[in-house]
């Protein structure tokens, strides 16, 4: 049983480009240059119940558009979507009962009223019984540590406090599927940690499926086994984060700080690996495979006098950046 099934999903937006200048504006009045932009281009994937999936990509890669189609906000141009066994935009009202949504940049709560009043309205909207609400939400409120915020109006909360309340609000009806669109944007490390901890917990406790978009790779590393990577509306990678890092970030970087000035040619003639210039002329960075590390260090140490050696692993962030710069097939 899949929580999300997507097949050849496509979303096109029609937009017109305006001509420049006043004369152009007049011409626009009569004939417009329509352009069809394919925001999501025939993507297919499935997500199993209980999976935590990171949905990543640059700005404008089509992440939000996909999420909006999966949540029933937008109608797809073509393709098939089945989420929780339903077609999101066809049976919208019945469907949204089974999902929770958090948009990091948009509030779900009412600005003027106390948090608990917002919760009460949502409880009514989602038809949650008093018994279920108490049993489930007492736990949520405690874990997210928002008990003391409940009687404050949303506009008086800090961003971190608000975000925790948003998360609680999205879970009032205890949905089996949770969509999080940049839930940790602009939050400090402590709040991020708390939110991650909480997401892990509900995933374990209720087997909640979570689809997460974020620009913060540490979120993905902490939560998701699997990532789906999007570029220009197409899926360019779908698989484990582990494998992505192995293929792309397998190598290590060794930074040597030499006592004397050394030229690139000298180094290459000694060992033929990729050398990159460091901060000054005394320092060079070698890009090597993990297996060759000992060999390279041994050679350099025996030939030159060194001040310092520093070994770095490639971070997920860099892996992602490399992929975007060079394309997926390189690795």
């Amino acid at each position, binding site marked *: 049983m899949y929580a999300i099934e997507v097949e050849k999903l496509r979303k096109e*937006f029609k937009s017109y480009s305006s001509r420049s200048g006043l004369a152009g504006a007049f011409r626009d009045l009569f004939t417009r240059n329509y352009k069809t932009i394919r925001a999501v281009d025939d993507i297919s994937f499935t997500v199993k119940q209980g999976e935590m999936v990171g949905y990543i990509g640059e700005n404008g890669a089509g992440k*939000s*558009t996909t999420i*909006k189609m999966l*949540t*029933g*906000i*937008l*109608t797809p141009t073509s393709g098939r979507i089945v989420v929780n066994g339903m077609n999101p*935009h066809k049976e*919208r*009202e*019945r469907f*949204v*009962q089974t*999902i929770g*949504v958090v*948009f990091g*940049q*948009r*509030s*779900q709560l*009412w600005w*003027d*009223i106390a948090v608990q*009043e917002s919760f*009460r*309205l949502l409880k*009514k*909207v*989602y*038809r949650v019984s008093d018994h279920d609400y108490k049993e489930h939400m007492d736990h949520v409120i405690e874990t997210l540590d928002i008990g003391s915020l409940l009687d404050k109006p949303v506009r008086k909360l800090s961003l971190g406090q608000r975000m925790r309340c948003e998360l609680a609000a999205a879970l009032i009806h205890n949905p089996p599927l949770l969509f999080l669109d940049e839930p940790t944007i602009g939050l400090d490390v402590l709040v991020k940690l708390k939110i991650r901890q909480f997401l892990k917990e509900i995933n374990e406790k209720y087997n909640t499926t979570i689809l997460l978009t974020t620009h913060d790779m540490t979120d993905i590393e902490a939560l998701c086994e699997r990532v789906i990577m999007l570029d220009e509306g197409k899926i360019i990678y779908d698989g484990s984060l582990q494998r992505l890092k192995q293929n792309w970030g397998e190598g290590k970087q060794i930074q040597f700080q030499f006592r004397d000035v050394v030229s690139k040619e000298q180094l290459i003639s000694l060992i033929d690996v990729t050398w990159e210039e460091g901060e000054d002329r005394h320092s060079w960075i070698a890009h090597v495979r993990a297996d060759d590390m000992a060999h390279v260090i041994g050679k350099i140490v025996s030939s030159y006098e060194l001040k310092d050696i520093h070994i770095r692993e490639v971070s997920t962030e860099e892996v992602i950046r490399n992929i975007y710069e060079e394309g997926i097939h390189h690795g």
Partner: protein
Amino acid sequence: MFYMSIFFQYMSQYVKTKLQYRTDLFVEFLSDLMFQGVNLIFILVVFGHTQLLNGWTRDEIIFIYGFFLVPFALFASFFNIWDFNERYIVRGEMDRVLTRPVHSLFQIVLERMELESLLGGITGLVIMSYAAAKLHLTFHWYDVILFVLFVLGGTFVYAGIFISLASISFWSDARSSIMPMMYNIGNYGRYPVDIYNRVIRYVLTWVLPFAFVGVYPSAYFLRKTEWYMYSFLTPVMGIVCFTLSVLLWNAGVKRYRGAGN
């Protein structure tokens, strides 16, 4: 039933919010009351100069105006969605609305309600009673039921037109000045339509049926038998207008493009 309970939940929340700002509430109430008072005096002064308008007496016109205020007040309290485009489409609030298991239009109506506007309805009733007393009108017991039906009909005509206009935002991103213009046109419905030329009368009856908010239903209470057919059509027009607008809305929601972020 579910929708009723949601409605009361939102309403109590609305009242609670309003009560939080006590001075605000007090000032608002006072200014609303003054506004209605000035309105009342203004009408009496303006109509004081017109004695007869194409066979309608001064008091009859005042009665129509009073009647018009009642459905208009209901409309203004619940369907005041003139800023829909800006609030929900441009700022993307519609995203949030669409992720909740209640009909989107109903949610927006609940979020935008302004119960203060109901005060205008009271002014309307006062004006009507004044005019009715002067005209020595008599009413049957069932006139009360008809009054309620006609008022609801008028409210739904108004609501239907404005919901349809709001739905246009789903197709066109541009902000339009249609809304204020429509408020103006709406005002024509509170004068006897036979003072206008045939085209305008046709438009106000069948295209933008504002005449069903004021003059047609009032004609029944003024015992103008020649207009009775139109009077009794008021609830029907209300239902038709409203249904069409909801269908248009539903079609529009499918076209919703969302706001980028």
